[in-house]
């Protein structure tokens, strides 16, 4: 279910684009390219808000809301922390994102290995338990965790409850991503290693783990993005702490400073850089 561009390596070769035919009427052209036109429109639909976010990060809004264009300004970019509380919220989100990703990736990878490398009693229920959190709306997960924290009253709502909640909902995504990678590995590779004098431990560290690593990395990227962006579950369990999405939510009620757009635009550009860089690196390595 989870897709990373690197997983498309084994696909079948595609035939070359059809050779150019003599030019025909615009109707024929339209008919031939209708899918591509629809696709480009869909991409525009997807990209439009990002473009708006980037443009409005250079706005100098009149009043508290940054919804209408006024005049160009670099103020927000030069003073990203000028908006009270935003950088603290950003810091909290980064900390939660990193920590919950680490824990979820470790726990989830263990589960993925257990599920894909062993036959044992209780596989079915385990698969179901992994699937359920993904089939549950966030508002239900958030509220039920809140019900637990309120009833149990061991942990006050705050940093730790956010962290616990994030690890919980990230786990399933990690398991599914890593499991998909493990399922695509040839079991003969491990047997070959054992045949070549590698014991179980050496086989794992020399063969299994390096081959699973791309899947684990993809899971970590996904987990961090999900954690960093989560609002609904966090909002239920944060107590008085404010993560970045919660800050934006609050800002939407009180007034959105352009600094929010700066963060959004910076994240977008950073992600583009990482993805493009990763692609270029991967292409160079494969050559």
């Amino acid at each position, binding site marked *: 279910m989870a897709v990373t561009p690197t997983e498309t390596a084994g696909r079948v070769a595609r035939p070359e684009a059809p050779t150019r035919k003599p030019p025909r009427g615009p109707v024929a052209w339209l008919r031939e390219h209708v899918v591509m036109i629809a696709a480009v429109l869909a991409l525009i639909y997807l990209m439009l808000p990002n473009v708006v976010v980037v443009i409005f990060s250079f706005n100098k809004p009149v009043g508290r809301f940054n919804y209408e264009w006024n005049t160009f300004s670099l103020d927000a970019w030069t003073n990203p922390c000028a908006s009270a509380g935003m950088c603290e919220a950003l810091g909290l989100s980064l900390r939660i994102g990193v920590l919950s990703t680490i824990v979820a990736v470790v726990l989830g990878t263990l589960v993925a290995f257990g599920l894909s490398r062993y036959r044992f009693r209780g596989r079915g229920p385990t698969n179901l338990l992994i699937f359920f959190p993904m089939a549950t709306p966030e508002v239900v997960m958030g509220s039920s965790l809140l019900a637990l924290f309120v009833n149990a009253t061991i942990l006050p709502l705050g940093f730790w409850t956010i962290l616990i909640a994030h690890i919980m909902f990230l786990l399933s995504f990690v398991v599914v991503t890593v499991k998909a990678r493990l399922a695509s590995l040839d079991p003969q590779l491990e047997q070959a290693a054992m045949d070549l*004098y*590698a014991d179980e431990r050496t086989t794992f560290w020399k063969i299994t783990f390096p081959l699973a690593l791309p899947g684990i990395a993809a899971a970590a990227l996904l987990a961090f993005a999900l954690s960093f962006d989560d609002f609904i579950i966090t909002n239920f369990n944060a107590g008085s702490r404010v993560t970045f999405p919660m800050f934006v939510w609050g800002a939407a009620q009180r007034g959105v400073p352009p600094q929010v757009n700066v963060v959004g635009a910076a994240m977008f550009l950073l992600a583009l850089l990482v993805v493009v860089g990763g692609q270029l690196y991967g292409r160079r390595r494969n050559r």
Partner: protein
Amino acid sequence: MSHRDTAPGATSPAAPGAGGDLRLEGVTKRFGDFVAVDDLTLTVPQGSFFALLGPSGCGKTTTLRMVAGLEQPSQGRMLIGGDDITGTKPYRRPVNTVFQSYALFPHMDVFENVAFGLRRRGRQDVQGEVERTLDLVELGTMARRKPGQLSGGQQQRVAVARALINRPGVLLLDEPLGALDLKLRRQMQLELKRIQTEVGITFVHVTHDQEEAMTMADTIAVMNAGRIEQMGPPTELYENPLTTFVANFLGQSNLVDGRIHGRDGDVAVVDVRGHRLIMPTARVHAPGADVHLGVRPEKIAVRPAEDVSTAGADRSRNRLEGIIADSSFIGVSTEYLVRLPWGQAVTVFAQNVDRDVRLVPGASVVLEWDPANTFALDASESVVAGLEPEVTELHPVGVRP
């Protein structure tokens, strides 16, 4: 897991030269109720090229995997040069495998793949050894390529080099040529044979391709339903099959029903629907009088009936009459389908030395062959054993093997 042998210089049981004969004693493997390998006993002499031949599902791969240590036998023991290896881990056996899908480590280059076994055993001079072995398989220039950048034939040779470099007591090859196209397969067969002769290591080769087995192996064991049907040099198996399965699986055979009338010294007299045929007693492999009388298609000479009747009867040759039902020209030879008086069809391969234009469908002919090329098999065996359409390999469509 506690006792690893990766430390440099560690004395390992998988030392080079740890050879000797491979011996299986009463080895049985059951998967649930299914008996994959049934009480197998055989000896593979050191330095020989041994082929396990059989259709898919006959237990040959399971046998191989048990020798490799990837599968545990339900019963029996396995020895190499007198050392019992039955319970030992795959990485503690002087055995290496060339896997069907090659199983090259995709994240390591060719050099590291080949060096893998040496490094695990803490060998010195990995560099030199790997280079020598890569030269042996003619891949010296490919050392720093990744497996994904190699052709099928090159990958196959890396897989051989990776196993061979460890100088195992026994090298196992699990259908290693199955993924290659016909031309490359022929080429690799010769190359593998050359390598085996050069290094002198025992090769155990699993295949369902009878031509491949006959081309390469010194000894072939034909397996069927978990048992060995017959074992011996390729010529012996081909010329004198002991069962209908071997007769049909290895090459092609004509089998007609007959009854042994009597034995005169070392000559047996067989009655086939009123025709008197003779054959050596030593080639009768049936407990009773009812037999399937067999002869290979290329041993039969086909001649127009009018030529034979004028020449008179030669009692020293077996002779049957028939009518040509069909003929197909193959180039080096012509294949005739000759209908016998009682309706059964016999296949004849005739070399195209001098083509007789009279041999066309509808022509009356006489079939003649040397009694020494006749064999007789137990009539209770199925005449179609070993003829079942080749079960295609179990790779679901669209899934990489």
